[in-house]
């Protein structure tokens, strides 16, 4: 089932759904109907409540929502994106860009570099399959590969060290 994370103000909502005739909101299942009125205006029925919602994309990647006289801005991401963002966020914080860790459990599909090779910021280091998606893991810094701890086919856990740069 597809999983999404919506952050609105200080609240966080985890949404699970495939067809959006039924959704799980933070684990609780609710019947749902969504009707498109115009490009920017939708009718959402959740349980017995009906909401008319206007929404537009903002330039900062967020969406604006207007409903019932209220105005909200929200960041909505798939769970995968959310985890990656959290991960890169924490990486940036401790500046450990030279130790490449797995952002989530997955399977190494391909290793693009060899030990001793130079890498530049943004170059692909390896491809990891996670949540049914193939993800390119890129270097956040210039450097030389010191050690590669995994190979094609390795299953990795979250936060497991994959590659060390120097």
């Amino acid at each position, binding site marked *: 089932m597809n999983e*999404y994370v919506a952050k*609105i103000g200080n*609240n966080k909502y985890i949404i699970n*759904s495939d067809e959006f005739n039924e959704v799980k909101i933070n684990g609780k299942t609710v019947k749902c109907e969504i009707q498109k009125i115009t490009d*920017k205006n939708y009718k*959402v029925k959740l349980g017995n409540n009906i909401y008319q*919602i206007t929404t537009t994309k903002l330039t900062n990647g967020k969406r604006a929502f207007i409903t019932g006289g209220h105005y909200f801005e929200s960041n909505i991401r798939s769970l995968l994106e959310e985890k990656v963002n959290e991960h890169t966020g924490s990486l940036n914080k401790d500046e450990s860009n030279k130790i490449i860790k797995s952002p989530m459990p997955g399977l190494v599909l391909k290793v693009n570099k060899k030990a001793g090779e130079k890498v530049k910021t943004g170059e692909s280091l390896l491809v990891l399959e996670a949540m049914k998606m193939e993800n*390119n893991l890129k270097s956040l810094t210039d450097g030389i590969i010191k050690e590669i701890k995994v190979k094609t086919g390795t299953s990795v856990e979250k936060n497991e060290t994959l590659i060390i740069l120097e």
Partner: protein
Amino acid sequence: MIKKILIANRGEIAVRIIKACKEMNITSAVIYSESDKNALHVVEADEAYLIGKSPASDSYLNYKKIIKLAKKIKADAIHPGYGFLSENAAFIKEVEKAGIIFIGPNASTVELMGDKTSARKLMKKNKVPIVPGTTEPIKSVEEAKAIVKKIGLPVMIKASAGGGGKGMRKVDKMNELPEAIERAQNESLKAFGSSEVYVEKFIEHPKHIEVQILGDKYGNYIHLFERECSVQRRHQKVLEEAPSSSINNQIRKKITLAAINAAKACKYHNAGTIEFLYENKRFYFLEMNTRLQVEHPVTEFITGIDIVKEQINIASGKKLNIKQKDIKINGHAIECRIYAEDVDNNFAPSIGKVEYQKAPNGPGVRLDTGIQTNSEISIYYDPMLAKLITWANNRKDAVTRMKRALSEYHIAGVKTNINFFYWILEHKLFLDSSFDNNFLEKKFIPLTPGKWQKNTNVNYEKAIAVLGAFLLNEENKIHPVKLESNHLNQWESLKYE
């Protein structure tokens, strides 16, 4: 006979005047600036003329061009709306000289009422209560001290030629007086070219109550009762209502009579508003606005009188045909000024394009709007988008109706102050009518940014989260999941199953 009116304004008020013209079978012509070429008033008018570049000084304030155009297109009259040239005596003189009817008072009346001390003197002479203080500019600090001793502290030092808060100083202690006078004089000289200032008592907790009047060219006057506009931020009205729920019929009788006397005193003709400060069951003349006001629709709702049509009739020389005894207060009306602004960012204008709008409607709802989808909200003009007005049999129901109408009003593309009105409409002091002009400053401003937003309704948030997830899901069906294109982002999706 007026057959064609040139409307020297823009936005919702230009559209409002066009509607009166249509009902009276008068041709409406408007001016527009370069940035307003797609504006609603241009679409709605019978004729529209590009007047100049976007800055107001080159367009809506450029009265030489405007008068030249009026002559060229053979307009019989010019309606100035509010703001821009509406209270510019020099403009009115030029219009009169050109043989065009100005839909408003004489230039001399505007001049008289524009000078604060001459207006105060005239009001005092005609038994209209003024705020205690001087009716002549002060000549010396000693003279000012003697007056302050008589009327008591705190006092305000105000510019005779003033307005908009310039050349104004509050004095709490006697030893502050000399410096305050000097600074007010300097400010006034810079802003208005005159250093004349006067002293008046500072009213600490006033309410703003104003009376709408109509006067024709034959000395007939009527009033259309009062409005209360105490919900203000920095002397800018935010929400207005009619009638005032703060005064009883006895006060109402006195204040409306005072307003009529004020209008008579300056031989006023046109629609006009006499503004008063009200505190402890006493009211004091503040100023007279010699034009149509932004908040005129609340009065139209409770009296059923079309003020713009009356203005046009008066200007064309007709006698007032409404009798005072036939005007009754019917129900209650509230107006919210809808602005493109970011309330939490110190009410900064929100500039941009209206991407989508859905207007409220239904029983007792009136929307005077100046925008449509794709309208540009530019830096050049006041960012008021529209006025939402509701009417009901009583104040409580008018409030309920306003909340309903606000909830139907969707504007996307710019930030608006729509949600801010819920804070006002649900505040205890607003509901029990005990608020005064300091209401927003004292109660709301300390709650910015953000803290005023009551625990937002979780149900709305859930609905938004679901819709957001749905839209992302739809996008991902077409395009694989995209991660943020930040170079610091290690992840890039290759394939989605």
